[in-house]
């Protein structure tokens, strides 16, 4: 199923580890070069920046080629014809991605990724045009129309398994999110169906993790983390029915009160239990991403608890949350540091890899600028228009007037 051989990918991961260990001073440069010779394979990859711009220009090129084809041959209408050609382009893009990998051994190179992404987009657009042209795009209970998101989900899963693109898995989850809208108008049932989908996914991933070798664990870990997050978001009715929907257009806005009380309160219990369960699982498996999802969902539970209970929010709630977060971090750090050698239960607060510091340094620049925007007033050239603040998050937080 996988387009890359297990030995090639294992060699790739090993080379990455060797580079990291050499960077951390655990291997000398001579040793690094010597050991790299033992793990050569035919895969070609590039750095993240070139990968991103190769992806971008491939998307531009493919999009423009398809648009030119349609413009030259005047295929914009009827929709069925254009859909048919979109399906042909989907096939062409997919086989181009396969060919690029087989012929040039591209691995996370941007080009094959953009081709595969285009194939998924063209497939869904083409199917819709061929099967449902002339019908409204708005989801309504019509099981047949669910064929389009179902195909998108299945094809994304295929791309994930075939090429190992980590973002293909959340794409499949998003497609799956639309499926119940076509099957039932009951909002409670829609939430349950999504949770069942993701729950099934979690069982499959758990089985795969038990079977697969070490280097495949990383991909499966990403998938599991997304599934836990998706399950939580589907269950947290305050997040999934109100805020997000309102932000994304508001056309499908639902009120939490429309859910039956037993269902509503059951989800409230689950959103308290799930973060703890995920956190414990992440800690037991020493899985960084699953742990992160556990922490994120715990924070989201604190944020959404008051709306769930119908209690009013207070302006000092974020302060209390901040104190809690910082307090937990300090407590864990001190507790770990107090252990023998600064280690407790196989965990340490010490920095072991230079990569951690690089992440913090890079993050500090990006979030530092974003934060600082809230404390920076309007342009000097327009002093009469000046109105300090307005920043709703971060920085001085001095939004609005005093």
């Amino acid at each position: 199923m996988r387009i890359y051989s297990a030995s090639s990918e294992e060699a790739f991961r090993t080379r990455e580890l060797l580079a990291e260990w050499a960077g951390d001073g655990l291997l000398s440069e001579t040793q690094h070069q010597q050991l790299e010779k033992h793990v050569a394979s035919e895969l070609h990859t590039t750095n993240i920046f070139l990968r991103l711009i190769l992806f971008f220009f491939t998307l531009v090129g493919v999009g423009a080629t398809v648009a030119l084809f349609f413009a030259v041959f005047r295929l914009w209408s009827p929709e069925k014809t254009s859909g048919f050609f979109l399906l042909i382009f989907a096939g062409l893009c997919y086989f181009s991605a396969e060919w690029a990998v087989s012929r040039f051994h591209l691995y996370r190179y941007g080009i094959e990724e953009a081709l595969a992404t285009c194939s998924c987009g063209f497939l869904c657009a083409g199917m819709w045009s061929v099967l449902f042209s002339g019908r409204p795009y708005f989801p309504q209970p019509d099981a047949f129309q669910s064929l389009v998101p179902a195909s998108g989900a299945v094809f994304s899963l295929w791309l994930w398994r075939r090429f190992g693109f980590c973002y293909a898995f959340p794409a499949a989850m998003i497609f799956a999110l639309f499926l119940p809208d076509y099957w039932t108008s009951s909002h409670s049932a829609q939430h349950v169906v999504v949770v069942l989908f993701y729950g099934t996914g979690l069982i499959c991933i758990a089985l795969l993790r038990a079977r697969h070798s070490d280097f495949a664990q990383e991909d499966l870990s990403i998938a599991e983390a997304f599934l836990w997050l998706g399950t939580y978001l589907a269950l947290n009715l305050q997040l999934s029915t109100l805020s997000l929907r309102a932000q994304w257009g508001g056309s499908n806005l639902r009120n939490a009160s429309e859910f039956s009380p037993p269902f509503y309160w059951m989800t409230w219990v689950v959103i308290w239990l799930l973060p703890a369960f995920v956190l414990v699982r992440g800690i037991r498996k020493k899985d960084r991403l699953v742990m992160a999802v556990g922490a994120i969902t715990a924070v989201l539970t604190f944020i959404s608890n008051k709306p769930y209970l119908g209690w009013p929010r207070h302006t000092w709630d974020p302060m209390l949350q901040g104190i809690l977060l910082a307090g937990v971090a300090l407590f864990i750090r001190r507790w770990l540091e107090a252990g023998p050698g600064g280690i407790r239960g196989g965990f340490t607060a010490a920095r072991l890899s230079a990569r951690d510091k690089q992440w913090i340094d890079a993050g500090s620049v990006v979030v530092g600028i974003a934060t600082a925007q809230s404390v920076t007033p309007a342009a000097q050239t327009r002093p009469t228009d000046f109105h300090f603040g307005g920043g709703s998050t971060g920085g001085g937080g001095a939004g609005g007037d005093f």
Partner: protein
Amino acid sequence: MTILSRLERWREQGAITAGQYAQLSSRYRREPFSLFLELNVLLYAGVLAFVTGLGWTVTTWSKQLGDLLVLAVLTAMLAGCFWYVFSRPAAWSPTEAPAPSPIFDYALYLGSLVWCVELAYLENRFHVLSGQWDFYLLATAALFFFLAYRFDNRFVLTLALSSLGGWFGLTISRWPSYQNSTYRQLALVYSLLVGVGAAVLQQLGLKTHFFNTYLNIVANILFWATLSGVFERQGYGVWVLGLLLTSAASLAWGLTRGQFAFVAYAMVYAYVGVSSVLIRGINDDKSIFAYFVITALAMLAALIHIARPFGRSA
């Protein structure tokens, strides 16, 4: 073959020592597992959430709480944070220096943000600067630069750069509403000043690890400024030239230093700018699509050529 079995074989072959084998295999098995990154992110999120709530509370309840209480609380927090950082003085070093304690950087960051809240409160309630925000921003930028260099803190450095940008009249969030020539000129002067300042500090050997932070911010502001000039309907020629020169410099810098973010900036900004000029006035869809097909292929060819020497074979 698993990574652990490779390590074992290398130890048997003598490529790595027994000590290295033990160290590398335990690192690979994540024994111990480091929570360094997670704890730092939690601390940062905690500080940010706290200051958000602080600003929100002060904004909403200032009249009920009274100025005296608000100012007393804010001043106490400010004093507490700065007392903490100044009472643990690590010897200053021109090179990168570790923080004296794990929460040191966050206490400094919190203090800096509380400073902003308090100054904003003072100005909004008492108009102590009589609308002279320039002084507030310049003084704040100077304070933050001092703190960033004294305590080796990138968070505060970005606050300083942003405050200085504000003094010049630049804020990213408000950019679209002020795309005029004055604004662009200010952006250019800011980029020039910060860029030259960073280069001088680099030459003097003062906190040379900050150089990339300066460079990334300067490059992006410069690109935005020139690109906004290119989008003008008239007199855009000089901005096109500026964009091309900036892109060439960024490309050369990125390739010679192996900093591919600058290669990405150069390629994307130049492509967007030049494309906007070339397809301007063309109304024929086919010509526009053909342009994008040809140029995208040309860019891909150029990028693959560029990537080849820097690409990695797994």
